């Protein structure tokens, strides 16, 4: 299929992309606007279940955005549901795009718009490395966090592209079809042009939303305000659905307006095993298991996902398993306590933040 746009040729060649039409939807401003013109205008109750939302709004082949920051306010339970529903051929984009690793392993995501995969001090992701090497994941573009963030911002502000000083001199310029080396028309200085980016579907976890989709994010929004405006289908997952009047009397932290939102999913504990600011800490044990045992081989990640995803049905059965393995309600309460104490919403004197690895060193 002929592609609609003129991409960076060198990048297409380096990335071995033969059919560039696979890239078109991400930067198609025109069809994005047309889709938005067709969105429902009214203030209607948009609440549905997670299962319905994934089934209705995630189509095979869609470009899915990772949100939050790897495991901070990231709706990991949504990705688990995408696995359970066995979606196929998804493109994944996000800065970071850490959660693509296990989604790809399960066969749901074949394509990667990559900025950062890993869990910081917990190490690099051996599973993603294997999958890129043997071709199960195909990298379609390489980004820095900031340049991808600017692509989302350009979309939010209705600008076809944005000029920036990132990526200059970097080899990523030769591995990204959506950016172009250019010159500032006024100063003649080198700049990089980043196209506005429109992923197909995004799930954004908010602490609170009303039933129409007005939503509040507390703690760092990372790219999520930009993504809410940049993406074609927007689903808000939230810890709590609050009355509309809460939004009108307390506008603090409200950053997503109802008209851009397609659906609202009440999803308490939706970020577990990651953290949700104001609500709960991440499960450091789970992440240690994932990074050190789960991602080690194809077999290990298979049994890891069987245990945590395919043999659970929703966030509650996941949570029951997690609590069952780690200390019951006391564990859950400690997750709440750690998050609030670290944010200094509650007294932190006497709260123990230390962590002892659960896997013996000789493993």
């Amino acid at each position, binding site marked *: 299929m002929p592609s609609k746009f003129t991409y960076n040729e060198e990048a297409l060649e*380096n990335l*071995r992309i033969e059919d560039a039409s696979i890239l078109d939807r991400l930067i198609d401003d025109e069809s994005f606007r047309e889709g938005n013109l067709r969105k429902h205008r009214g203030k209607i109750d948009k609440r549905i279940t997670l299962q319905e939302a994934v089934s209705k709004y995630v189509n095979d082949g869609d470009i899915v955005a990772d949100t*939050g*920051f*790897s*495991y*901070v306010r990231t709706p990991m339970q949504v990705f688990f549901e995408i696995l359970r529903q066995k979606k196929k051929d998804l493109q994944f984009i996000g*800065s970071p795009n850490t959660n693509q690793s296990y989604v790809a392993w399960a066969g749901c995501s074949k394509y990667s718009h990559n*900025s*950062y*995969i*890993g*869990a*910081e*001090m917990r190490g*690099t992701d*051996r599973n993603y*490395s294997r999958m890129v*090497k043997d071709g199960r994941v195909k990298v379609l573009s*390489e*980004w*820095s*966090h*900031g*340049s991808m*963030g*600017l692509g*989302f911002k350009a979309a939010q502000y209705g600008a076809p592209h944005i000029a*920036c*000083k*990132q*990526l200059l*001199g*970097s*080899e*990523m310029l030769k591995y990204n079809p959506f950016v172009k080396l250019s010159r500032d028309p006024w100063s003649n*200085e*080198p*700049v990089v042009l980043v196209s506005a980016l429109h992923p197909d579907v995004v799930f954004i976890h908010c602490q609170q939303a009303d039933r129409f989709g007005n939503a509040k994010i507390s*703690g*760092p*929004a*990372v*790219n*999520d*305000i*930009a993504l809410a405006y940049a993406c074609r289908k927007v689903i808000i997952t939230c810890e709590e659905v609050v009355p509309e009047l809460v939004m009108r009397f307390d506008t603090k932290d409200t950053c997503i307006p109802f008209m851009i939102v397609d659906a609202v999913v009440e999803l308490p504990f939706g970020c577990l095993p990651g*953290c949700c*600011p104001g609500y709960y800490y*991440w499960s*450091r044990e789970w992440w240690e298991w994932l990074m050190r045992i789960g991602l080690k081989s194809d077999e290990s990640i298979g049994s890891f996902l069987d245990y945590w995803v395919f043999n659970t049905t929703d966030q509650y059965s996941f949570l029951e398993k997690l609590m069952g393995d780690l200390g019951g309600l006391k564990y859950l309460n400690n997750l709440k306590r750690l998050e609030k104490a*670290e*944010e*200094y919403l509650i007294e*932190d004197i006497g709260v123990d*933040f230390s*962590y002892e*690895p659960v*896997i013996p*060193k000789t493993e």
Partner: protein
Amino acid sequence: MSTPANPFEQLAYNISLQIQDGQIVYVGTGLPMVGAMLAKKTHAPNITMVYESGGQDPWEGPMPWSVGGAATFRRAPMNMEMAHSFAMAANGFVDIAFQGAAQIDMYGNLNTHFIGGGFWDFRSRLTGSGGGNDLSSLSENVILVGLQDPTKFPAKLEFLTSPGHLTGGNSRREAGLLGNGPVACVTQIGVMDFDPESKWMRIKGLNPGMTPEIAQACTGFELIVPEQIEHIPTPSDDILQVLREVVDPHGIFITFPPRVK
């Protein structure tokens, strides 16, 4: 008398000395975070820390495990978005940013993409850029941090993720990049800087017990050895006490040999 500084503690101390009071410091997790917090607790109480996920100026508290974790926005007066936090660097509000990498070359260019082959046939794929390229491109001063050995400090990178001084001389400026680029490279050997003309890495100061020969043996390209080399002191007992009891009391980052993460 405290136990003498281990290599990580010396490294954290050397990192802290790169920071001047009053600066805005962009920090990632790991030893740079430890060094920055040590600086704040000792000679630089008035620095402001900012983080790429959007946290800025958090209230003093526990060591963050993640650059998006609660400690990075603990009682912060406001939070930024990611694009905004890098815009602060582009607009001249980031004085120092710290960078680590799998590979660092003589011009301070960095590779965080893969090692052991090419884009398709690597031995190991790494994290990718993250915010590294943004900070390297936009911050006023970049401090590199790493454990120095010939494979991590090669003459040629396998992939150039984040720009240092590119091909040396004026090339960074000509490419249109902002800021001074890398101004120092802090390792277990000591502190390197970059020749003002050629922008090639040179020895600036050595940790106790280190010699130019050891430094060279740990480097995959020729280091410039100036006539005058600073002798970096070991941290005093007072500083070690702050480091061990206040900054990283659980020894998450300064335990040597490193504990399992």
